[in-house]
């Protein structure tokens, strides 16, 4: 079963889509592993996801760390630090 990925702001623009369903490899244990696997796809993915400091993630719609396990996760959003208000 895949994980729903969502991209926002310049992450969305660099990757060129607002989301997709991913089937990460079996050795991807954490959100950080998933992001590294995506970044390795190159092109927009590398540009958007290469520098983890610039990114924030939400797991199932709650802010989370890159060390969050992927077990049982349905939705992961990757985006820059927020700038609302």
């Amino acid at each position: 079963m895949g994980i729903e990925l969502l991209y926002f702001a310049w992450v969305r623009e660099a990757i060129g889509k607002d989301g997709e369903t991913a089937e990460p490899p079996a050795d991807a244990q954490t959100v950080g592993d998933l992001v590294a696997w995506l970044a390795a796809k190159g092109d927009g993915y590398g540009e958007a996801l290469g520098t983890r400091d610039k990114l924030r993630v939400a797991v199932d719609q709650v802010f989370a760390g890159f060390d969050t396990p992927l077990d049982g996760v349905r939705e992961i959003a990757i985006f820059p630090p927020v700038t609302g208000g």
Partner: protein
Amino acid sequence: MTPEIRIQPEDFEPGAEIARLEGLGGGAVATFTGLVRGEGGIRTMGLEHYPGMTEKALGGIADQAAARWALAGVTIIHRVGRLGPGARIVFVGTASHHRRDAIEAMHFIIDWLKTDAPFWKREEFADGRSEWVAARAADDAARDRWSG
């Protein structure tokens, strides 16, 4: 106390929002309204958000405020879409029996909203350029003042 939370492209009326909070009987109403500034040649401000998470994040911030201060009411409104200079972006209103509770809770909510609600701003300039607004360390510091 059920917070009133709205994410909408439409404008809102601060006077109408205050009237609702006044009607809750607390006696003290505090508000913050944030607008698009017209500086640096900005033509429009684009506001993107994460539907589904945004409502949860704002509800969680309102709940935190209600756990910390005695509140009769909370209103949070945030606009999305493309807004021109001078347009309202955000409104935070609180009602309480005590002015300090109302004011501090309002301040807390807008500080947390700035750093913990999934909105992103993009500035579009008159010369055609556009850029995503960068997060500010000062906003993290403002939120962190509320800890401890």
